[in-house]
């Protein structure tokens, strides 16, 4: 099928399957799946600027469905989501401007590829270290009889001491989040959201791969709530990202629409699946995903051609 806006030929079945896989990932991990979608579009010869913008558009649709599912399951902190949306939008604009600057300089594909590889590897390594340490310490507590019954199912994290220190920073205004059970400075929330937004605008997608771990480790939000709230927040920020990228000529909406048809079914499966897994296990299962994205980017970079 020919997509005239991005001037590319892509099999629609390929797009639907990619959308389906991303839908499952989004519903389960609360991430937009751009670490798969971006490289998957790149693999078909779509330029990075189109891959970034189109992925954002596709994520709007996918996140609406997944966020609705999570809201029904009580996994969304609306107050946190609205606050984060402001920081993300500012960050997304910065990221989009960086893309524009690279587009003008004529090296958008190479720079974004290298940044993507570094970011994907970094996230996978950190989450592997943290979730393994958490699961090991959880087992240790259980064996020594310190943790019993439902207590062992709580969302423990090896990064908790750092999270507690961040929560102790009393920088006005302090925000209470009753749904998440957290009291934290508004500036911390905005900073986390802003960083996520920059990655969203620069590497595409909702940047859930960086925001979801940040919400858990920096803000101290329970994993299930972080997943749902991240998706809700992505609806707002990705909508803004879609508009700003479309105005800059980086969105092929036809590709996004085709991909999204597969994502609808996948998102439903993913959202329901989160109920059967504990927080650290969800995070451990997340580890291979950015690595797959990195592998695809390395492949396109090394071989220099598409399938």
């Amino acid at each position, binding site marked *: 099928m020919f*997509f*005239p*806006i991005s001037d590319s030929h892509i099999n*629609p079945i390929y797009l*639907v399957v990619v959308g389906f896989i991303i839908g499952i990932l989004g519903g389960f991990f609360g991430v937009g799946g751009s670490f798969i979608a971006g490289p998957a579009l790149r693999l078909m010869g779509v330029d990075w600027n189109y891959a970034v913008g189109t992925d954002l*558009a*596709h994520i*709007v*649709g*996918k996140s*609406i*469905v997944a966020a*609705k599912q999570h809201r029904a399951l009580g996994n969304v902190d609306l107050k946190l989501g609205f606050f984060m949306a402001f920081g993300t939008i500012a960050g997304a604009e910065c990221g989009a401007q960086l893309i524009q600057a690279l587009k003008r300089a004529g090296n958008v594909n190479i720079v974004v590829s290298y940044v993507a590889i570094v970011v994907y590897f970094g996230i996978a390594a950190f989450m592997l270290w943290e979730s393994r340490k958490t699961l090991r310490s959880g087992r240790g507590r259980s064996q020594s009889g310190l943790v019993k019954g439902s207590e062992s199912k709580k969302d423990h994290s090896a990064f908790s001491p750092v999270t507690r220190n961040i929560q102790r920073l009393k920088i006005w205004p302090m925000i209470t989040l009753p749904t998440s059970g957290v009291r934290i400075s508004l500036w911390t929330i905005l900073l986390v959201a802003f960083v996520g937004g920059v990655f969203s605008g620069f590497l595409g997608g909702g940047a859930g791969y960086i925001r979801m771990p940040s919400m858990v480790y920096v803000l101290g939000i329970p994993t299930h709530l972080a997943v749902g709230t991240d998706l809700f927040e992505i609806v707002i920020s990705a*909508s803004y990202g*879609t*508009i*700003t990228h*479309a*105005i800059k*000529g980086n*969105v092929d*909406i*036809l590709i*996004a*629409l*085709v991909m*999204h*048809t597969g994502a*609808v*079914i996948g998102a*439903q499966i993913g959202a329901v699946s989160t109920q059967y897994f504990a927080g650290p296990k969800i995070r451990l299962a997340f580890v291979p995903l950015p690595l797959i994205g990195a592998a695809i980017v390395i492949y396109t970079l090394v071989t220099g051609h598409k399938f």
Partner: protein
Amino acid sequence: MKKQAAKSLRAFAIELAIYSVLVTVYFFLVLHLLGEWLYHLEAQHRYMYALVALLLIAGQAVALDAVTTLLFRLLRGRWR
């Protein structure tokens, strides 16, 4: 329990098959016709294109979610 799982799986397989047919029809009837118009809109009216793009993806999300929910409800009722 196993019987219930088999029923759910069957309902899901049928949902997937019906959904695939609907999506194929949608590809040819809607996206094929929209392609040319969107291409010109993108080239000539960027701001309008941005708005239309957002409305299209959001509209599709709501519509497809309604279709899948309806399909799932109908099939679950039938196979119960």
